């Protein structure tokens, strides 16, 4: 390890940037793969059933002779897509509620804080299943469910941050200089919120993807015709006992990797945007 570090004398911020770039490129490759891989590889091919991983079929094939590598990549793309919509929706709910709680007076703050506490006191997964089930499952149900359940932690964070900055001396000075409220919001408060928001958004992502997979896995999420990771995993469970480990192993591992990538993007962005992080 030390010899590598000597060859590439990067400081911590440069490392962080590297990690972000690597993670982003892996995710982009997966998405492009999902869009452009040959769909012919996932049609039923009964002559090549249940084969273990090989050069031709990197992740092996399943009981219908479909290439698991292609299925996994497509499943991941779908999961990332669902995750993206869910995370964007959740993050915006969090932003709006967080800002409203911090700026719209005591009553608004009380109601929103109560709502946050309510959602936090029940595990995500339970509310998510409930909402998805009520809406009849499927793509729409799961996306709305994800959006409505993942905002509370980020909302709380944003509320606290806005409140702190609002009472900061430099904001009060700005008010005395006759700066209107919107100006202060844009120039003083937003620059502090944006990094927090982006990081929070990035960290929501893996959460959303995992929960999507989990709900789909138990059959309340996406329909079995869609090649989602959750579906692949739940189908593969049946074949695990017959020794076909690759059916669940590779998709599971890839899901884990993608989730870690988003985590790492979030963490490293935090390091890069910290204004006081000028130390090593």
């Amino acid at each position, binding site marked *: 390890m030390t010899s590598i570090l000597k060859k590439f004398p990067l400081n911590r911020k440069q490392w962080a940037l590297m990690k972000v770039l690597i993670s982003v490129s892996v995710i982009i490759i997966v998405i492009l793969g999902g869009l452009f891989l040959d769909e012919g590889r996932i049609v039923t091919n009964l002559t090549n059933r249940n084969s273990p991983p090989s050069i031709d079929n990197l992740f092996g094939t399943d009981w219908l002779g479909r290439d698991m590598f292609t299925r996994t990549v497509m499943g991941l793309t779908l999961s990332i897509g669902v995750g993206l919509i869910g995370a964007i929706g959740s993050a915006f709910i969090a932003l709006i509620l967080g800002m409203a709680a911090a700026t719209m007076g005591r009553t608004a703050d009380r109601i929103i804080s109560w709502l946050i506490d309510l959602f936090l006191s029940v595990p995500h997964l339970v509310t998510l299943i409930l909402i998805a089930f009520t809406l009849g499952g499927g793509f729409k149900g799961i996306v709305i469910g994800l959006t409505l359940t993942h905002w509370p932690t980020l909302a709380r964070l944003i509320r606290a941050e806005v409140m702190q900055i609002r009472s*900061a*001396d*430099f904001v*009060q*000075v*700005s008010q*005395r*200089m*006759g*700066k*209107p409220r919107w100006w202060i919001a844009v120039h*003083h408060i937003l*620059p*502090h919120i944006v990094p927090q928001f982006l990081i929070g958004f990035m960290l929501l992502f893996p959460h959303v993807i995992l929960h999507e997979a989990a709900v789909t896995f138990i059959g309340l999420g996406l329909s079995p015709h869609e090649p989602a990771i959750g579906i692949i995993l739940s189908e593969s469970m049946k074949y695990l006992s017959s020794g076909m480990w690759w059916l669940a192993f590779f998709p599971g591992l890839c899901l884990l990797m993608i989730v870690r990538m988003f985590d790492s993007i979030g963490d490293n962005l935090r390091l890069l945007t910290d*204004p*006081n992080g*000028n130390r090593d």
Partner: protein
Amino acid sequence: MQLEAKDIGFRYDDGPWLFRGVNLSVEPGEVVGITGPSGRGKTTLCRILSSYETPLEGTVTYNGAPIPKKGYHPVQMVLQHPEKAINPRWKMHKILHEGYHPDEELLALLGIEQEWLTRWPHELSGGEMQRFCVARALGQNTRFLIADEMTTMLDAITQAQIWHAVSEIAKKREMGIIVVTHEVKLMQRLCHRIIDFSG
């Protein structure tokens, strides 16, 4: 054009009264010192005069009328700790130009070097940051300046530099100054009149 506080009283929530019935008036061009033991509310009085805080009793008037809530405040305050009065995510030139664009002469008077303008706040020392806070507070429409322990954290040379600049500008513009400091010698140097604020 005087700044006047009448029968001011203040307390936090249901706590004991910090002070009541405080009267104070400052004329343009006048330098008034406020002294007194710590913890008696000198800082709170300053915050009330510059509308950072609303008094529970009494009124603050400028020119005989209450000070409007919106627009540039004629009473500007410079605080003790510049690092708190500065947005850490802004570069120094943005901080300096928040209220208005100070001219070269003012910057030279305060010893602000051009090269500092492109820096981040954490790259400057407390004394350097405080010069920016003072420059920022000296807009054309500032009629009164409140210096609450403005140079307490600074060395003697920087203190003298800042006060020379501020006094010169105050004289030129007929600006009133309220000085809060524990340093008796400094107060004697600067003030025309000293008020003992013992609560």
